[in-house]
């Protein structure tokens, strides 16, 4: 199984790898959110306002994270996630850890970094084709 997503065209010659993640919420509903796939980021980062509006419960303990915009504080939360490209729907078999931004210069987007998504999937970026492919790593 390989999930394939094309990049979103932002402007002529500018495309970004935005992938949909279906968050399965505690109230039994689900919401699909789009995140920027970022191989340079160590974690999945979600702005606090977005996490709270989805009812994500972050832990009390905060951790310092270093980014281009400076240091920020995050708290960790867990969420059940499906990834669907229209041909395949893959349910990640455990809760995915995400970092909810608590303070610091806010990055106004959802970053989908390497841990844990790149552990769940073998990720292939194809800039020429403006596509990204995710193949489950079946590490479990």
């Amino acid at each position, binding site marked *: 199984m390989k999930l394939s997503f094309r990049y979103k065209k932002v402007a002529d010659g500018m495309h970004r790898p935005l992938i*949909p993640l279906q968050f399965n919420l505690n109230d039994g509903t689900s919401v*699909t*959110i*789009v995140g920027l796939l970022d191989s*340079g980021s160590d974690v999945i980062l979600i702005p606090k306002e977005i996490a709270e509006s989805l009812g994500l419960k972050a832990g009390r303990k905060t951790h310092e994270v270093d980014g281009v915009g400076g240091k920020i504080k995050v708290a960790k939360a867990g969420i059940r996630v499906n990834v669907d490209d229209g041909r395949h729907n893959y349910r990640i078999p455990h809760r995915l850890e995400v970092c909810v931004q608590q303070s610091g210069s806010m990055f106004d987007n959802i970053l989908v970094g390497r841990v844990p998504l790149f552990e769940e999937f073998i990720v292939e970026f194809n800039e020429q084709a403006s596509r990204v492919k995710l193949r489950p790593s079946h590490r479990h």
Partner: protein
Amino acid sequence: MDASYEYFMKEDLSKYAGDWVIIVREKIVAHGSRDHIAKMLRQIKQTHRGEPLFIAKVPEKTVQIV
């Protein structure tokens, strides 16, 4: 796949650049800054009860580093 994702990927949403959008059944039903997302989501959950919701930040046409 969520039809709203297809809509988001295909449509030129540049007039919403920089905004967060909520899409329901291939229609933008709310948009605004991150600070307003909770209020928008509460309202949409009331008016579109049980409908699949889709949330995204519309990218801006500026070079981005993260």
